[in-house]
């Protein structure tokens, strides 16, 4: 997508307390290693030439692993530039839980998956749901509440959302 959309996505996501790191396929391993707090769990990434296999990330976690994990790594996409949201598609390996239980969610996003608006991203998601995908989450920043008298980040969901943006994918 356009560089405008990517710049908007980055700005809006940061407004919502997500952190964004722009990286490339060749620099991905270093970028992930820098932000990976162990123990970590994950689901396999869906991008060519990028893999979690060489990282200390449990790809077939038990419930105990999930419970203990500090970080969960999943692929995400599409993303919504106007709100800084990423879409987490579910899968049979438990991407929903991996992105939800650990304190930090590391979301790996291809730049080509950044859509300008919610309605354009939703049109894409709508097709995927019609084709068999069973759930998605539009996630914007960390989980949040104001029920205890002031905003608090990190409630039932992650306290940190860190996006690794693959500029060449």
């Amino acid at each position, binding site marked *: 997508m356009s560089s405008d959309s990517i710049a908007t996505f980055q700005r809006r996501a940061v407004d919502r307390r997500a952190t964004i790191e722009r990286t490339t396929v060749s620099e991905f391993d270093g970028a992930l290693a820098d932000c990976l707090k162990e123990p970590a769990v994950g689901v396999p990434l869906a991008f060519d030439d990028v893999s979690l296999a060489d990282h200390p990330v449990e790809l077939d*976690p038990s419930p105990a692993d999930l419970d203990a994990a500090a970080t969960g790594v999943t692929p995400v996409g599409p993303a919504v530039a106007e709100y800084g949201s990423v879409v987490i598609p579910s899968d049979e390996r438990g991407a*929903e839980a991996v992105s939800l239980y650990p304190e930090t969610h590391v979301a790996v996003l291809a730049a080509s998956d950044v859509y300008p608006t919610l309605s354009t991203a939703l049109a894409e998601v709508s097709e995927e749901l019609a084709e068999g995908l069973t759930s998605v989450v539009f996630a914007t920043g960390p989980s949040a509440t104001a029920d205890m008298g002031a905003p608090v980040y990190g409630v039932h*969901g992650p306290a940190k959302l860190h996006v690794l943006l693959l500029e060449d994918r």
Partner: protein
Amino acid sequence: MSEDRPRSRAETKAQLRDLLDTEGPAVEANVSTFNAGRYRRYAEMESTEAYREAARRIKEEAIERLPELVEELTKQVEANGGTVYLADDAADAREYVRDVATDREAESVVKSKTMTSEEVHLNAALEAEGIEVTETDLAEFVLQLAEEEPSHIVAPAIHKSRAEIADLFSRVFDVEDPLETPEELTQFARERLLERVKDADIGLTGANFLTADTGTLALITNEGNARKCAVTPDTHIAISGVEKILPSVRDLSPFLNLIGPAGAGQDITAYVSLFKPPVATPAIDFDAPDTPGFGDADDREFHLVLLDNGRLSMREDDDLRETLYCVRCGACANSCANFQQVGGHAFGGETYSGGIATGWEAGIRGPGAAADFNDLCTGCSRCVDACPVKIDIPWINTVVRDRLNRGDEPGRFDSLVDGLTPDEEPGGLDPGKRLFGNFGTLAKWGSRTAPVANALADSSVARAALERVAGIDRRRDLPTFDPEPLTEWFATRPDATPEDPVREAVLYPDVYTTYVATDRGKAAVRTLEALGVDVTVPEVGASGRAPLSQGMIATATDRATAVADALCPEIRAGRDVVVVEPSDLALFRREYGKLLESGRAETVADNSYELFEYVFGLLENGADPDALRSPADGDAEIAYHSHCQQRTLGLEDHTVAVLEARGYDVETSDVECCGMAGSFGYKSEYFELSMAVGEGLTSQFTDPKNADRRVVASGISCVEQLDSLLERRATHPVHLVDPLQGAVE
């Protein structure tokens, strides 16, 4: 809570006084933040109006096609592998969920926030089977511990301060180190709730939207608990009002763009989940913690309970149908001056709260369920502009008030007011409502018999009787009637028609301007004439605003018909209609469309103008501004409060612009409402609430930078409220431009 009989005035007064002292401050602090956020986001977004129009259109179509959408959704959910149950009423829904839970031998259920489950009293039904039910939304968790009811449909524990929550946790959990910060409280709740989620046999959620195309369930949340509840246990039950079905996933777009801004001024909530259950995400069996991989997604079970409980009948009801467009964002509560002061424990029924609660409670349980709080809607119309689907919430409140009036048993007080109040309403109508609703007739009588009427109104005996019988609070000043009505003054004065007039106009002589505040009518006539307008002031009659605000729709329709009979010929003869009182103009432009046959309603609406809107137009079209008065030395600084409906009609700016053009320095009020709202603040049970609402205005206008400014207001009831709130007197803005120097003000 609803009871068999409506509360008495004394009970209402006592409840409101208690809430103003206890829950009010926390409610106001929280709700005002949401309200300010909505204004900000609505202004920031480029497409707010386009989204609102699209959302409205989609809802209209969806409710029109509802039976067909229910069928399509059912087919889709079943094809996906889930089960759909259409529950006729609350008991039916409870029994179904209970049976699913007992069939699964469930011991515990975790819930995310669902007002629909509150509506059917689901928790109690499950607990009666020995099933442990845990609310995982932090606010609902607080209420469950405190054994209290929600005070707001979106933020249910809004009435509790952080300190109260900390005390509650300490008391219930025997906490060693006292919890203080919001972070500590959140962390404490999170840890306890996580254990409940891990143990749970069933996850129970509501639904913000359902889409028929794919059998998709949309959940809009911030905390992440709904995600956990929906996917961690292998059984997911969702309970939803049947009205939440939209045709397709793509139709969600305007709603998702609006609901965060409308609810709390967020751009979008942290999570928008779209589930097409049963989902492929494996359930997680924390009882087998070391088994690699999670559970088998094939074991998942999904039940969708679609609740009718009166909704399909509401769909057939021309006046309540719009309630079904409600997306439960809370904007009508947040924008409501009365709600801000007392919250949903006063302004709400058994389940729902805020302006739209009248539609829900009356639709689900009958009008009686709204009897105790329906009068808290003053019809100011602020919520209509706040509502993301543009529901005419004041109209729903008016209709239900009318149904309540008609449903009453014949009362004791009929003879006291019947003679003075010729209306179309049933016997048994509350005497206060009848009195206020017939203010036009009373005012005419008051003017004819002034000074007797004025003296009587000042006597303590008469005031005591008025308070006892009609509920008019003794602490209010009553209007002083002018023995010479405006129409008589106009008919007998020397002709002052300008040579070569630029326009011809009828000054609409509303009841107050005709019989009480005649000076502002005279000033308006002189102002228009000075700008070259040929003015007439014919006998027209009361607008119908007074009876409508009491829910007396038949009487209001009679008044509207008479007004249209009088004004339409004038309009056909080429005259514009100029209206001094903003609430009457709002009636012409809005409610007349419901009271009159189309054609006549549009004729009146399209040719009527607020006084300063009209003056602004004349000046824009070349009238000489110097014909109007400009401030005397030291008299230029004013503090201006425009009327609620004037603002929702977008007409505040015209007055400010005209005054500024004449050299006034105008500071405008930034409160939602002065608190008086027509007759509302006169009623003894609402007097204190009315004054509490007015405190915002008092503090702004007594602030040192405004304290010396002359106070100006466009609405007659605003002027009267300001006179109660402030030591200095308020005046209508027309007196500031009235060309007659030394005119009475």
